[in-house]
């Protein structure tokens, strides 16, 4: 096994996923010994982005500087990982997409001149090629650490694309929709969180993003009728989709 050089890049996000990375690395001293952290503003002082084996990119792209940065990082990394729902799908800041930019900025900042944002919110893979995706709000740091162990050992991983329901059922959680009549986005959401919300008998709100390889617009429409019947307003449903699955909604997906 040889040491892997790693850079961790943060774009627009709440930084929650960076904390997940930190927690999972700190809990694994043995893994840290095999990682040479080249760039990670939360862990060291370097501001130089160098050639690395692995780049972990967290957050979404909201201005041209970030877009350039991501392209640079792509060129300088062997493996690029998009971490978190912001990087994979755009994230909660996508909620502003389609709104008047000035109104949005003025709502938060008294002096908006310093804010450089584009009207659109972009996921990392809409700008560069991404090798691995770990969505989630926040992403599952354990899953990332398990993956890094494999990379250190010279291995890899093929992603398993399935809905949250698969994971939920395997955990033996009684279905909150069928048994309790609660609206739950599990059926159209990617797995990976360990069915956290249903294990507390709450419906999933889709923070791991849309299972877009299956769920196209027609299916989404059919699904929206089901959650609406169970008491979720169409407005709320659309807001959750926009917040956690934005980039997959803007792509025109073919019938799967």
């Amino acid at each position, binding site marked *: 096994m040889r040491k892997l050089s790693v850079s961790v890049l943060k774009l627009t996000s709440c930084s929650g996923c960076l904390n997940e990375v930190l927690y999972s690395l700190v809990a694994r001293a043995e893994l840290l010994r095999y990682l040479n952290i080249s760039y990670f503003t939360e862990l060291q002082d370097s501001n130089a982005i160098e050639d690395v084996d692995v780049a972990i990119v967290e957050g979404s792209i909201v201005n041209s500087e970030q877009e350039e940065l991501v392209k640079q990082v792509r060129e300088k990394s062997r493996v690029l990982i998009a971490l978190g729902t912001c990087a994979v799908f755009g994230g909660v800041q996508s909620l502003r997409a389609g709104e008047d930019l000035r109104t949005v900025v003025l709502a938060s900042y008294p002096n908006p001149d310093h804010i450089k944002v584009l009207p659109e919110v972009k996921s990392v893979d809409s700008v560069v090629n991404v090798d691995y995706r770990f969505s989630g709000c926040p992403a599952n740091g354990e899953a990332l650490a398990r993956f890094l162990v494999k990379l250190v050992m010279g291995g890899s991983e093929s*992603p398993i694309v399935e809905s949250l*329901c*698969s994971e939920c*059922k*395997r955990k033996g959680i*009684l279905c909150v929709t069928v048994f309790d009549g609660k609206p739950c986005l599990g059926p159209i959401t990617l797995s990976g969180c360990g069915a956290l919300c249903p294990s507390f008998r709450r419906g999933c709100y889709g923070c791991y993003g849309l299972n877009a390889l299956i769920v196209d617009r027609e*299916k989404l429409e*059919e*699904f929206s009728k089901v959650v609406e019947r169970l008491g979720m307003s169409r407005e709320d449903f659309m807001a959750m989709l926009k917040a956690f699955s934005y980039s997959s909604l803007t792509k025109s997906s073919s019938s*799967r």
Partner: protein
Amino acid sequence: MSRMLGEYFEGSVLLLENLILALKEQGLRVLSYKLEGDLPVIGEVSRLSDLLIDYTDIQSPGSYRLAKEVKGVFRHTQYSPKHLLHYPTQVIYEISDDFEIIRTKDDFPPSVLFGIKPCDLAAIEVLDKVLERDDVYQARRARIEYIVVEECVEPGGTCFCGSIGTGPAVAKGYDIAYARLGDQVLFKVGSEKGLKLVEKVGLTPASDETLRRYNEALNEARRKASRIPPFNVVVRALEDVAVAEGFWREASARCVGCTNCNMVCPTCFCTEFSDYADLSGKAWRERHWFGCLSFTYGQVAGQHFRPELFMRYRHFVLHKFLFYQRQVGLPGCVGCGRCITWCPMGIDLREVVSRAVGYVGR
């Protein structure tokens, strides 16, 4: 008077308690449908009141409710014996740093399946064959010392065992079967072991009147549970539509590929492996249930056998009705209706296969 196999006995519903206690006395773990908090699950029970005898499950496409009701009629829940015998997730072996494969020790204690339904028994029969060479399953299966089946006098809202021929009564593969006729219970003995147990519990031979009521109830239940055309008719129809793309696109139009049907199906056995390692040199392989409606199912290096959902939905249905027959000589669908009840979209398999009968391709 000597008692014989195939004889019918009767007794009060309270004798079920004696039966459970007699099994526990033998040091066996008794597993049945039961309540955990307010959730209907499958797990260990110690007395009759642990069972869901005062509850009725109200099932319809996409909905399941439990109603407390004296002398309720309980069918089943999201869980089935599959959850006990073919674990959802388990580490099957570890690999040490000198590449020795260490099988995971299975500490499944000697157990009894109690009050499972005829469809559940039919599903076990399928799993027994499909997983014939799966030593993890077989080791656990060998530790099932008794199977006590509750026959269904009243089918649930999504059941169709009558059409498949897997219920509402059982003919073989059980030790004791019983049917609740109000406060009375009719018992059927299916094995020598079962016969010995019946003798311990103090049952009396069934009266003609009880037998008549039993036959009447079961015939009525069979009629009610015949909600799709007969199995052979469905099989022929599905053979006819096997390559009718339009049929499968239509049938799966509302399906979102969530795999709930796969997970709750008592005969769905597919698994996927995940390998893990730590840097100390230890590695382990985990096996977990994997549904054929998932995108990754059918994906192989560089290609995908069934890239579109309608292809995977078609595979699910045809596997149940046609391919299991060729694999193990039994229908893969046992008519329990779980895939209908636990489908969040409320897609009704009965409608889909019924529509295949008489389908004219467009």
